[in-house]
């Protein structure tokens, strides 16, 4: 790190660095992002920290959020890793279109995702309509709807991260293993997946954080009922109008979770701080 910085300083002295205005704007960018977080930390009622563990409404929402986000993560890994492998390794017509479609939920406004989920799985939906008519099962207002909404928004994060990881793998290893007679399954299980572990962990952390934070699609598609569909982010919105202090406290807790996820990803995205291997993996793709 220090060697790099010295080089940078040298370049600035020679008049080759970015103009001063760039540094000012860069500092403004940091302020824009950090200031609200500082505000949250300052305004949160730290004296009520124990409420986080004791308040029954929070415990109910926390249990639901953990369950739903972990199931969503499981589904994302189960379906997302195969999709990532196919996108990275199997050339087929329309691959770019499939990738673009799969990544769409990352850029879609969450409430639009909720409307789309209603259009598919609602009682009048393309799938939900026949399902309700045949079995009497309806998806909206259920915990299944919360999981579906969370998976819808989380899966792309896992796919994009893992696909980048697959592309970075050393194909020489796989060719060697294949030459030695390893079957396709053995290759996947013994060579590809172990090499993928770090990327998979990073993708899983991102996908889980996104699933845990899901709000717009959930309130639109799943509704808002304690114990069934009222997740932590929905509880924050409810408490903001009933007990704002508690909403600040909950927001602080979710900020803490996000920081923990970043810490988990530090080798990947904050690597530059420790020696400049920030480009390792697929961080640039996301």
């Amino acid at each position, binding site marked *: 790190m220090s060697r790099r910085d010295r080089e940078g300083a040298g370049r600035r002295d020679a008049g080759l660095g970015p103009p001063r205005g760039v540094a000012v704007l860069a500092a403004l960018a940091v302020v824009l992002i950090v200031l609200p977080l500082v505000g949250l930390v300052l305004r949160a009622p730290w004296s009520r920290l124990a409420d986080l563990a004791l308040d029954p409404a929070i415990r109910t929402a926390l249990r639901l959020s953990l369950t739903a986000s972990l199931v969503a993560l499981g589904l994302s890994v189960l379906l997302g890793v195969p999709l990532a492998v196919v996108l990275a390794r199997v050339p087929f017509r329309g691959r770019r279109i499939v990738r673009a479609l799969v990544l769409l939920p990352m850029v879609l406004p969450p409430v639009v995702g909720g409307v789309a989920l*209603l259009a598919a799985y*609602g*009682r*009048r939906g393309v799938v939900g309509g026949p399902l309700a008519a045949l079995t009497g099962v*309806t998806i*909206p*207002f259920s915990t299944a709807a919360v999981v579906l909404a969370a998976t819808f928004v989380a899966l792309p994060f896992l796919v994009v991260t893992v696909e*980048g990881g697959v*592309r970075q793998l050393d194909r020489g290893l796989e060719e060697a293993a294949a030459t030695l007679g390893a079957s396709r399954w053995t290759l996947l299980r013994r060579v590809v997946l172990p090499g993928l572990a770090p990327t998979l962990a990073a993708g899983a952390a991102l996908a889980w954080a996104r699933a845990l934070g899901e709000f717009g699609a959930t*309130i639109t598609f*799943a*509704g*808002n*009922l*304690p114990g*069934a*569909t*009222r997740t932590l982010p929905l509880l924050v*919105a*409810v408490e*903001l*109008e*009933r007990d*704002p202090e508690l909403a600040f406290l909950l927001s602080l807790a979710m900020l803490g979770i996000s920081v923990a996820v970043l810490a988990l990803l530090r080798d990947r995205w904050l690597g530059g701080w420790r020696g400049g291997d920030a480009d390792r993996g697929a961080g640039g*793709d996301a």
Partner: protein
Amino acid sequence: MRPDPRGPRRTLAALSAPMAFLAACAAGPADAGGSGGPDPLVVFAASSLTEAFEALGAAFATIDGGVPVVVNLAGSQTLAAQLIEGAPADVFAAADATQLARVADAGLLAGPAEPFATNRMAIAVEPGNPRGITDLADLARDDLLVVLPAAEVPAGRYARAVLAAAGVTVVPVSLEPDVRAALSKVTLGEADATIVYTSDVAAAGGRVTGVAIPADLNVIATYPIAVLAGAPAGVDAAARFVAFVRSAEGRRILADHGFDAP
């Protein structure tokens, strides 16, 4: 993903079409607002007042001494929270006295709150009432999906008062953040029934059917309105709007949208 020399230019080209579309959409209402005219009046109104206040605002812009009106709509408790957090607004029209009192207690009113309309509750069901819901007791049927406005919003409080008066216990499948969100679950066909204001049933047109709640079980919801201290558009303009809402013309517009006189 892969270095692609065409990448950035193609991305920009792809983005330009939706951006141009959005810009074209945005240009329309901005022109209608009239640049260089007087500051628009910002009115925070309970979500049940959506159509009524859009009509009142449009009418107020055309009268002598009137100005354009921008209406911010949400559940009364959301609006009260926004005002207490410092949202700049000129007028607050709430669906009950409780939420207006929260704002008054925070010292944010320029004058007294005055009643301007009343409303009642009704059961909203799917068009034509396919599930045969005839009274409040039916809402306890376990073959129905019932949503209610959350207890924090006035409509949710009134709905619970009505159910308590009828001695009916409902297990809702969702508690919606405002009365219009509850109504939309029925208009979308996701829920079989909800309890909303009679004015909401009127506003939904044919998209829901209303089932009346008998007067002896019903509540009369009184809507108060007040001028906010430090009104950015000026306390005078805000007071003129409040007077207009309470005038004969204002009452007529409110009556057209299913509200009664206080």
